[in-house]
């Protein structure tokens, strides 16, 4: 099972995501409330997967994604955001996001995306 970092300024979304991820056996190794904190936590925790909101104070999710991918070009970042405007999705995908999930999401949506991003577990073998 994967070690996951949640970056979102909403405590409500962090709580819901954490619950879903833990229910399917993943470990939430850390949480961050804005992009700046997200980058720092990524460097510190080196997670298998990061969920990233876009609209956040201080540093937004797209900028945090860019900086994380600069630091670790193999970083797997799943965007989980209400900001699904065409230009935002394109920017996120160009900046290296592996998937984009729109809020509000259903539990099945997140479970399916996580499965698709983590694949058959080969990345976990790489990490260990």
């Amino acid at each position, binding site marked *: 099972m994967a070690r996951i970092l949640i970056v979102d*300024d*909403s*405590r*409500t*979304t962090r*709580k*819901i995501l954490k619950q879903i991820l833990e229910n399917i056996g993943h470990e939430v190794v850390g949480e961050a409330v804005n992009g700046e904190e997200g980058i720092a936590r990524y460097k510190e925790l080196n997670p298998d997967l990061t969920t990233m909101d876009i*609209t*956040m*104070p201080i540093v937004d999710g797209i900028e945090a994604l860019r900086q994380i991918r600069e630091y670790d070009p193999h970083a797997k970042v799943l965007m989980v*955001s*209400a*900001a*699904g*405007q*065409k*230009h*935002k999705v394109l920017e996120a995908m160009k900046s290296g996001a592996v998937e984009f999930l*729109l*809020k*509000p999401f259903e539990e099945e949506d997140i479970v399916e995306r996580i499965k698709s991003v983590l694949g058959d577990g080969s990345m976990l073998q790489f990490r260990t």
Partner: protein
Amino acid sequence: MFEQHFANYLVEKQRISETQHALVTEQQTSARVKLGLIAVAERLLTHEQAERLNALQRQTDRRFGDLAVENGYLSADQVDKLLEMQGNPYLKLVQILTENEILTMEQIESFLRDYQLQHGFSHDDLQVLKSGNLELIIPLFVQTDQALATKYMSLAIRSVIRLINNQPLLGKMEKVTTYSFGNLAFQETTGDHDLWLGFGSKGDELTEIATPFAKEAFSKMDEDAFDSVCEFINCINGLFTTELSYHDVVLDMQPPLFAQNQSLSRANGFFIVPIELNGRQTDLIVGIDGKVEIN
């Protein structure tokens, strides 16, 4: 939605008691409207014809619709239309009131005319309300000369119904220049338009949004409850800006914020739609193209 409004109106005018109202609410979820009642309400059958068919139905193992067609009272197309209306919540209300002998059909029709006059609804408006079709009902409460504002508020109300409470009581929209609040959560969206959307309340009524959205019980508006309302607003704005982006309208959402015990003001005014959730009033507030000040 309308059936609740009308049932509350009947209590307010002392046409039915609180106890009878409770019975109606309880039966509303389980009742299935009988075809005969719909046909009478739609004036396709008289009471006598419906009673005759009911009697025939008791004597034979036949469906009401088939008997109505066989006896030449209704066409097959009319029966199909009536069958489609069986889930209609207003007709359920009528059935519960008449079957429990709380009111007669004639009384209901008379009180409905009073309700229509008091609320200034046209005959067509009333038909829309009775249809239960939200796509048609919401515009009755949200009418502005700004298409963008109407679309924005309609989407917000649909989001309330989909994610928060499927039985809100809407009040008629007003345009005002100031608004005093005890609690307010809001978000600004900038770009090709400046949009402002918030939910406000005098007291802790915003917990009616915070609790279902976070799936966590809040009794007062603390920081976590505000976070939940803010995230709900963020989702509404996400849906709206995403939709507009496919029409080449570029907008960026700012992080949502909250405030307490202040006032909003805007010279050109902003729109307020009262939304009652579980008997507690919250207000949807929308401003288009112009800064909304908080002081």
